[in-house]
């Protein structure tokens, strides 16, 4: 049985409430940090742990914290990014619903480390139940003296606020989130300046994902070095994976980084294999934004090594034959799924969620969606496939924020790995309306990799 750090007490009845969470050893990290550690010690522990941002980019959290500018007389802010809206990712919602106090505790520890006296949890607007749960949890923590003035007699003050967003995917981008938090239109800012220098209300700000913040609790409890023992290389600790798609047991799993992908999909402890005994066709390993990989490439890298659930192993081979761990939205496709339809669906999402600020993303996402719609509905031409590749290249890297890249990668990778299927949609337009393409001969995991 793999070690669990975040979801240890997930099955305890009433873990949502302060009493039960406290009984199970909750808020020990706050006591330890505020009574025995200086803020710099906490930052040092997080650095030692090797924790990397769990929101998608995988930037080392300790390093991000150490970049925070600390000018005299200017407040600093910690903002928790709970605007989780990536298709396929639902781990933060799960954490906030079932163990809200893990997030609150992490917020207190992290705010203390950064010297922030006001912190915000920016929650996606659609998550009303989670907002109520968090607000209740904050009230409970405040009653118990873990929030407010002079916490545990340490002289440290912290006010924690929950801010519902308007329900826009783009507000998950940190600078758009800050704009939205300030009450403006959620358009990403042009960087530099980075939020660590000029963020919320032009003050130094750190924006972290829910899971990253919750992970600081076990790091402080057990020490950074202990945390770093889990996982391999630069991927340390545990990670929540939201597994979905055609598997027997969809849900949120806490895994130790370094778990082989094959074991994750097929073992009964996790996904439990492909539903209905079908064959694996493709996997989107880290939420809709990352490149899709066919079965042969997700189980083994091009070099023939077994692919592991780590930042490095999933990215092995670059975008030619690799993908990204991303936010951990693990979507599994069986042999009966249509990649063209799926790509169109993803692109429709990005088209809908583009903020419209910069031209390549605003116009390009809509264009790609229309072309994919045309191909999917049997009216495509061969030139449309090349057009899609070209448009995705024109978007990628040329936009203000990563949404442009996120829209371009799924399209580019789907065509790279499943070109046959796109071409079949062009040549067999009518037939494609009634049946799916199935597995490509080269993507069968039973075939030896070339």
């Amino acid at each position: 049985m793999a070690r669990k750090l975040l979801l240890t007490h997930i099955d305890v009845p009433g873990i949502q409430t302060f009493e039960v969470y406290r009984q199970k050893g909750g808020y020990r990290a706050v006591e330890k940090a505020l009574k025995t550690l200086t803020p710099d010690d906490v930052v040092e522990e997080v650095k030692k742990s090797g924790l990397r941002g769990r929101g998608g980019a995988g930037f080392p959290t300790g390093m991000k914290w150490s970049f925070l500018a600390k000018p005299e007389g200017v407040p600093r802010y910690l903002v928790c990014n709970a605007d989780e809206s990536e298709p396929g990712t639902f781990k933060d919602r799960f954490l906030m619903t079932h163990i809200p106090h893990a997030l609150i505790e992490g917020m207190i520890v992290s705010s203390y480390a950064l010297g922030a006296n006001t912190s915000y949890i920016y929650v996606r607007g659609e998550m009303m139940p989670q907002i109520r749960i968090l607000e209740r949890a904050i009230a409970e923590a405040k009653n118990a003296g873990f929030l407010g003035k002079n916490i545990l007699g340490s002289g440290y003050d912290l006010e924690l606020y929950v801010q519902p967003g308007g329900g826009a995917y783009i507000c998950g981008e940190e600078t758009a989130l800050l704009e939205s938090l300030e009450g403006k239109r959620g358009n990403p800012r042009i960087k530099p300046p980075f939020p660590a220098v000029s963020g919320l209300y032009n003050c130094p700000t750190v924006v972290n994902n829910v899971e990253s913040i919750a992970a600081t609790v076990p790091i402080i409890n057990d020490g950074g070095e202990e945390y770093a023992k889990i996982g391999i290389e630069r991927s340390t600790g545990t990670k929540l994976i939201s597994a979905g798609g055609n598997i027997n047991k969809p849900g949120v799993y806490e895994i130790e980084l370094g778990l082989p992908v094959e074991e994750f999909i097929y073992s009964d402890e996790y996904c439990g294999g492909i539903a209905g005994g079908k064959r694996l066709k493709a996997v989107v390993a880290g939420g809709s934004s990352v490149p899709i990989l066919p079965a042969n490439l997700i189980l083994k890298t091009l070099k023939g090594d077994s692919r592991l659930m780590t930042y490095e192993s999933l990215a092995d081979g670059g975008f030619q034959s690799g993908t990204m761990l991303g936010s951990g939205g693990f979507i599994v496709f069986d042999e009966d799924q249509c990649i063209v339809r799926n790509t169109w669906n993803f692109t429709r999402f990005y088209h809908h969620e583009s903020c419209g600020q910069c031209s390549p993303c605003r116009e390009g996402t809509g264009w790609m969606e229309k072309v994919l719609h045309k191909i999917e509905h049997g009216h495509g031409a061969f030139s449309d496939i090349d057009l899609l590749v070209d448009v995705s290249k024109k978007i990628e890297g040329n936009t203000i924020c990563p949404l442009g890249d996120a829209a371009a990668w799924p399209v580019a990778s789907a065509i790279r790995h499943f070109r046959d299927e796109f071409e079949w949609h062009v040549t067999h337009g009518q037939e494609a309306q009634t049946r799916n393409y199935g597995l490509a001969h080269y993507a069968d995991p039973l075939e030896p990799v070339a």
Partner: protein
Amino acid sequence: MAEDVKFKVSIDGIPVEVAPGTTILNAARRIGGDIVPPAMCYYSKLQGSGGKCRTCLVKVTKGSEKDPRPMPKLVASCRTTVMDGMEVQNITSPEVIEARKGVVEMLLINHPLDCPICDQAGECHLQDLGYEHGLADTRYEFERRTFDRIDIGDKVQLHMTRCILCYRCVFVADQLTTKRVHGVLGRGDAAEISTYIEKAIDNEFSGNVIDVCPVGALTDKTFRFKNRVWFTKPVEAHRDCPSCSGKVTLWYKGDEVLRVTARKDEYGEVEDFICNTCRFDKKATSDWVIEGPRQVKRTSVISLNHYENPNPPAVIKKNLALQEANKEQFERMKQLL
């Protein structure tokens, strides 16, 4: 630090020294000529503008003297400040040209291309940009986005169909006028500039949104469909105005002043913003002190009917010996530009 610290920067191999904090685009404008990246949304007079249209993307091949690593992505030159020793490629980088072509294509796919009936034609930045960087043909075969025209105030008409969402007019409303009543509604390719439930913009400086608009989305209702700009003759004039500088350009057709605009520099940016009284109400020659004909850039279609062609033929331009021989003619040309 001494005030006269200058950063050495090279753009397309041409060195220039600029003050710290200058953007790459402004450093390039110091050099001038072909290496200046085009800008559709950046406006030097409007704080916070730029970074949106992505036409000014450039490649930074050397970050600075201290950290010579190149920047991983193309950067928006209008919002990236220079570092000492920075090396930038604009028209010498095939990657930049390719990306720019892409951006121009994206800007045009939902543009109606109704230039023959558009008042902006002839002084439209998108027209120039499309001509310089775009393809002759379109690869976009779907229905284009359209909006209804709305009147924002009795003098300004908004035709969103032509808009490229540069946000310049939003910045004007924010920074020049006291009460902002218009902004961006919606998002993605459904985003539109609008006023709150078609409320009129009622402000002494609101007319400037017309001047900053790079395309024909915001037009002067007192000039709409009156004439093509290249048939009108620009004349510089001023008047003693209590609320603005009073320095304007009058656009004549015969003896009649068809419209009044602010004076624009070679990058299409106004020199001084003007008030609505000067712009919309003072349309008689007797209201103004005439300074003389406005010098319009030779390449502009507006100069088409007004000047003789002193430009030496291309063959002379390329030949150094011939250039020397035709020195006088070159000097004359420079004065006219």
